[in-house]
């Protein structure tokens, strides 16, 4: 008989952690989904095909396989083809690393690119760069896939006819001749924001040669800054102890960046109890990475942030400027005591920390918010910040559109951007471009044949090279000059924007760095031979910055978005719409990137599309629903009307969202008429640009919504691999940590069961000691700090890139078959009040769900010492190594999936199809459908040669990057040669996830070495293991999250109204207040034994908890 292990339920008091609304409500549908390792759709053949047609297909594939395998009996002749001449530095079989940088609109990211035999295969952050810890971003990690995108623009297209790329030169020459003749007066050049000094120099050169030429710059997600030409503020988080973010997501890779993530999280590395930690207040309308990390978070409609800022200013005694003679309305504090207490506490905290406090405002907030923030920062908080001006400025998109409309332009050169898709809708850009294309010529330099290169809109489409294929330079966030060097010649013979500008200015197009080194000469001065070498080698110039930081306090305005002090209150009939950059596809530039499409959004866990995010209350008010059926979210589709336009989009209810507010990200809804263009991006999600005007680019009020009656299937991964509560994520407050330094070890079940005594002894490593028989040198382990994890997903993409993990497509994600080895579990937490919200209650009544906290937990194979997967494998395909790795031998695996079934962490992934060999839309055809040859060749070029590409029917999971471990061990042994110095020094090996983490939240190393970094982390009181009561002895442990609430008091009570919610310990501490037997009613006998370790006494409200229990 099957033995059902009854996992203990979570405690009744304390907090409840949940990943989705369905889990919260504990619906029957959810339970059924949960009961199985692989959900219905994943493990059963429930799709359109009947069993009969399936057998037919299988028969056909068997026949084909038979023919194929006959030829496979004999050894095929293989060849070794050495080069004719040995290139410099190249050692066949070894990686070569080069420094480069990825241009980004708000500052480039310094990178190190790994190449094998001249092929770039992996991107990592540049750890030589002083402002970075070697971390990188999701975008940088995924950009390698763009390089090998088979849908790229490959050939010159003239009036819809493909031509040879050798004609590009001729075309640019004639364009230059035309410029010389007209002096540029009818020419408009539209550029991207690349922060490139060389491009800036070439623009100046063009302006000198052709004084009448028009140069414009357009970045859709920097529209506000561009309309205003404002310098960019750089908040100095490393100097701030108290931070208030007003709708500013400074922990993402757009508004924020590597530097702000590093300097912010560095202040949260609490090693010992009592160590200082910063405090973050966030006011925002939707959950962001920043909001998830906050100590106090207030959900507030984005259009009301201005009122919040004014109210705060008034509390702090700072004058607020009037708008058109009218004062900014204040929030009605008398009517809302919660808000009153929140604001009072915040104001007092800012005042108390003057000089160490800082307020930051989001780039899409109106100018007045920034003015108020600057005023408070100058007088009260004395916030330390610096600012950087952009490399050059040109006309903005509105002025550019005006020029075209006036009929002065007959030649339009679009370099890089995609304005037909993403220009503000009130400019009617499509028709403007069509007009120029019909009377003159439109040249488009584009990475894809997309919306802006359609026939009739562009006369000439030029293929654009990737940043890994070209020379260039760019400025980082703080204005440091970074070098971009090519790893490979352009795969399809494209040119870069720099080369295009150079050609227009009369310089020859070459493969060399002439244009860039000329700029460098002007920067560095004098003889640059050695300085240039160092610049290219290190990837950055350590000399003077190009754009000197503007003095502090001088950054009053960032955005010119006209101030709207709306008097119409928000209601379900008049909502606000917030348009933001997407966490995955950014402004749309990554929408043809399969990794980014399949990456779950950090907050919603939505893949392959976007959705209109709303709160539970708003959904109830508007009678909107999303239901879970067979594990697939079916959401109501709404029609959003804003700025005079309308758009249909599915809804997605997100706890913690502000009421009467809709958030919709851009970058989806792409269309390309070219059948081979944008195969990944096409027809996914809703195009939010359709609702965006240049007057209201980010926040629009007075938006109405109507139900269309349609339903849409979303692909959300939030329930996949759920582990049903059980104190998986643990958190406490800073004061709890002081009171009980090992609080994390005694939460959930660990609070009251005795320590496990295993009869099985690890033959290699027991009680911190190596065995004496055949001592291995290392014992690998990992620690992940939940306190610094910001949930940004960079590790997931880094893992995908390093380990050749395929994408599976939307349909298969819906079936629960995604392949990510490393997932980031996102938990909402809320105080569970059992009387108020009984289990299984109707979600529509559960409005309290909107007030939640969030916590992230990266979860991959934890490499259990007593691994449950190993004991059930019938073919020994998954076994233990003497160094503590739970290893997979793919060739032994026969795909029984027992291991995944037995894995309590649900981290094993099964290849249900040949994802690499088959097109994602015809996986079910098996060998009858082959991916185009070119796609497979591109995939081969991109793949890491040190990791096996897995085929159908094979189980896989995190390996702790065993290829990196083995490489490091081999290199050490080579170094040791005839000696016994074979121990790999600490921190030589970094796993892909650890290396990529911009917050430095992951550490990997030898746990048998007490001095290694991982041992130091594991020695922390915050260290705990997930599901340790199962005695799996995982090698990956976690450091519990800490929160740092504001504990100021007024009289006897705390000022902050949400103090009960913030970081209140889950499970253990404060656990035993409830009815003990009721809490563990389902626990099997024996689990209830008394603890040998002192459990923690329940703590009353905010009294420091004591050690030592009364069990």
């Amino acid at each position, binding site marked *: 008989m099957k033995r059902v292990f009854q996992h203990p339920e979570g405690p009744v008091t304390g907090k409840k952690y949940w990943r989705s609304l369905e889990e919260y409500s504990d619906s029957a549908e959810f339970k059924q989904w949960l009961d199985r390792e692989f959900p219905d759709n994943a493990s059963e053949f429930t799709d359109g095909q009947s069993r009969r047609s399936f057998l037919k297909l299988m028969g056909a594939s068997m026949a084909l396989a038979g023919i194929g395998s006959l030829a496979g*009996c004999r050894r095929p002749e293989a060849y070794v083809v050495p080069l004719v*001449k040995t290139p410099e530095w190249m*050692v066949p079989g070894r990686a070569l690393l080069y420094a480069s940088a990825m241009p980004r609109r708000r500052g480039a990211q310094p990178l190190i690119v790994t190449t094998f035999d001249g092929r770039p295969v992996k991107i990592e952050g540049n750890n030589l760069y002083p402002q970075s810890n070697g971390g990188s971003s999701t975008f940088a990690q995924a950009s390698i896939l763009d390089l090998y995108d088979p849908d790229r623009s490959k050939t010159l297209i003239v009036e819809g006819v493909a031509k040879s790329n050798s004609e590009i030169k001729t075309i640019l020459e004639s364009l230059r001749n035309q410029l010389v003749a007209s002096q540029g007066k009818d020419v408009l050049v539209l550029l991207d924001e690349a922060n490139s000094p060389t491009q800036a120099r070439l623009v100046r050169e063009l302006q000198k040669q052709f004084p009448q030429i028009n140069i414009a710059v357009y970045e859709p997600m920097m529209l506000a800054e561009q309309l205003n030409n404002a310098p960019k503020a750089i908040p100095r988080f490393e100097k701030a102890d108290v931070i208030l973010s007003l709708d500013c997501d400074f922990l993402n890779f757009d508004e924020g960046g590597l530097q702000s993530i590093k300097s912010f999280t560095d202040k949260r590395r609490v090693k010992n109890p009592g160590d200082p930690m910063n405090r973050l207040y966030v006011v925002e309308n939707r959950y962001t990475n920043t909001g998830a990390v906050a100590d106090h978070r207030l959900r507030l409609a984005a259009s009301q942030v201005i009122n919040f800022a004014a109210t705060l200013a008034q509390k702090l005694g700072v004058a607020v400027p009037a708008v058109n003679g009218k004062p900014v309305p204040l929030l009605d504090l008398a009517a809302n005591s919660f808000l009153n207490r929140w604001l009072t506490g915040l104001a007092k905290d800012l005042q108390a920390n003057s000089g160490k406090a800082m307020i930051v405002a989001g780039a899409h907030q109106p100018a007045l918010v920034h003015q108020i923030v600057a005023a408070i920062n100058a007088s009260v908080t004395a916030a330390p910040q610096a600012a950087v001006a952009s490399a050059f400025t040109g006309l903005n998109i509105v002025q550019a559109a005006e020029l075209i409309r006036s009929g002065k332009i007959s030649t339009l050169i679009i370099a890089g951007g995609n304005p037909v898709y993403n220009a503000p809708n009130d400019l009617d850009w499509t028709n403007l471009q069509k007009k120029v294309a019909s009377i003159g010529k439109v040249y488009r330099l584009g990475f894809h044949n997309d919306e802006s290169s359609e026939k009739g809109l562009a006369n000439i489409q030029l293929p654009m090279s990737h940043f890994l294929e070209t020379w260039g330079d760019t400025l980082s966030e703080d204005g440091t000059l970074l070098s971009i060097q090519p790893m490979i010649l352009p795969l399809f013979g494209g040119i870069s924007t720099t080369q295009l500008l150079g050609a227009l200015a009369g310089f020859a197009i070459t493969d060399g760095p002439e244009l860039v080194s000329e700029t460098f000469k002007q920067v560095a001065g004098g003889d640059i031979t050695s300085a240039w070498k160092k610049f290219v080698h290190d990837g950055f110039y350590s000399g003077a910055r190009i754009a000197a930081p503007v003095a502090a306090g001088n950054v009053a305005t960032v955005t010119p978005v006209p101030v709207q002090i709306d008097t119409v209150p928000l209601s379900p009939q008049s909502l606000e719409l917030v348009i933001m950059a997407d966490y995955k596809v950014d402004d749309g530039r990554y929408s043809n990137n399969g990794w980014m499409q399949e990456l779950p959004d950090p907050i919603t866990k939505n893949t392959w599309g976007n959705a209109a995010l709303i709160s539970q209350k708003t959904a109830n008010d508007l009678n909107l629903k999303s239901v879970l059926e067979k594990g697939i979210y079916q959401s109501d589709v709404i029609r959003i009307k804003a700025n005079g336009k309308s758009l249909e989009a599915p809804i997605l209810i997100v706890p913690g969202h502000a009421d009467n507010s809709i958030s919709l990200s851009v970058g989806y809804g792409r269309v390309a008429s070219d059948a081979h263009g944008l195969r990944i991006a096409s027809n996914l999600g809703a195009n939010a640009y359709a609702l965006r005007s240049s007057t209201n680019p980010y926040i629009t009020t007075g938006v109405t919504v109507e139900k269309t009656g349609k339903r849409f299937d979303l692909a959300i991964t939030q329930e996949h691999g759920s582990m049903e509560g059980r104190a998986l994520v643990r958190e406490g407050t800073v004061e709890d940590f002081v009171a009980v330094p090992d609080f994390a070890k005694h939460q959930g079940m660990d609070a009251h069961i005795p320590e496990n005594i295993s009869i099985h002894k690890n033959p290699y490593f027991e009680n911190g000691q190596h065995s004496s028989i055949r001592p291995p040198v290392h014992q690998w382990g990992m620690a992940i700090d939940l306190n610094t994890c910001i949930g940004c997903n960079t590790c997931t993409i880094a893992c995908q890139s390093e380990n050749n993990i395929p994408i599976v497509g939307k349909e298969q994600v819906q079936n629960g078959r995604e392949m990510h080895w490393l997932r980031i579990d996102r938990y909402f937490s809320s105080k569970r009040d059992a009387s108020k919200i009984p289990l299984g209650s109707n979600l529509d009544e559960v409005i309290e769900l909107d007030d939640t906290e969030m916590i992230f937990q990266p979860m991959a194979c934890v490499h259990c010492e007593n691994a449950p997967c190993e004991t059930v494998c019938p073919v020994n395909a998954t*076994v233990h190594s003497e160094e503590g790795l739970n290893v997979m031998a793919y*060739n032994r695996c026969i795909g029984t999936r027992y291991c995944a079934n037995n894995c309590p962490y649900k981290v094993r992934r099964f290849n249900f199809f040949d994802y690499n060999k088959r097109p994602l839309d015809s996986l079910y055809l098996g060998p009858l459908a082959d991916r185009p040859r070119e796609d497979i060749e591109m995939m081969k070029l991109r793949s890491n040669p040190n990791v096996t590409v897995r085929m159908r029917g094979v189980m896989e999971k995190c390996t702790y990057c*065993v290829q990196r471990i*083995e490489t490091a061990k081999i290199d050490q*042994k080579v170094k040791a040669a005839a000696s016994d110095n074979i121990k790999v020094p600490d921190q030589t090996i970094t796993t892909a996830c650890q290396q990529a983490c911009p917050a430095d939240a992951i550490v990997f190393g030898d746990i048998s070495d007490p001095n290694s970094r991982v041992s130091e982390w594991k020695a922390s009181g915050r260290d705990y293991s997930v599901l340790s009561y199962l005695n799996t002895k995982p090698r990956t442990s976690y450091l519990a999250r800490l929160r740092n609430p504001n504990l100021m008091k007024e009289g006897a009570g705390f000022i902050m109204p949400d103090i009960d919610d913030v970081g209140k310990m889950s499970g253990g501490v404060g656990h035993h207040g409830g009815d003990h037997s009721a809490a563990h009613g389902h626990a099997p006998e024996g689990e209830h034994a008394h603890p040998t370790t002192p459990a923690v006494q329940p703590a009353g409200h905010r009294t420091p908890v004591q050690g030592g229990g009364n069990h």
Partner: protein
Amino acid sequence: MANFFPKWTNKLPVQILIGVVLIATFNVLGIWYWFTPKFTRVGYQPEQPIPFSHAIHVKQLGMDCRYCHSFVEVSGHSNIPTTQTCMNCHSHVQKDNPKLAVLRESHEKGIPIKWVKVHQLPDYVYFNHSVHVNRGVSCVSCHGQVNEMDVVEHVKTFSMDFCLECHKNPEHAVRKNEDVFNLDWKPGREQRQESLGKNLVHDWKVNPPINCAGCHR
């Protein structure tokens, strides 16, 4: 009543039985021999585009392995020499030899030479040369007396068993690093392989991996 089974069917069961036994035997023997590395690998001696003789270059002329396989000590992959490497000598020596026409053509036109791969491990095996030759494992252990071969031949099975044999008992194969590229080296009288190997394994902490991840990633 009609005779359902004619007389010849009496022999049918025996015939079927013999047939089945024969087919089974054939299958077993076939798989036993024809599908094992012993048949598919050992003795494989393909014809190369240039009849390069290791015997002449190494045995007769005394060249070191590392003159051509120059990265064997630093890389997992032991490289086949580039045309340039060959031409270092053959632009002076034997420069009109018709056997080297392919080499000269490669040099002039920049076309790489397609050498036929003799020793080939499956894709899922990650073998590393550098760690073996730096830790006392000689070329001869896996490739045989290449220095005496006119045409390179596959002499060892390269099955997993072959690898593990040595990984479990490294003392049978390790020698001092200075003797690694000396393919004619034999353990002396005083220093038997057993004792030498045991000493080296102890002194160098030789611990070849015997878990899956050592070779399969």
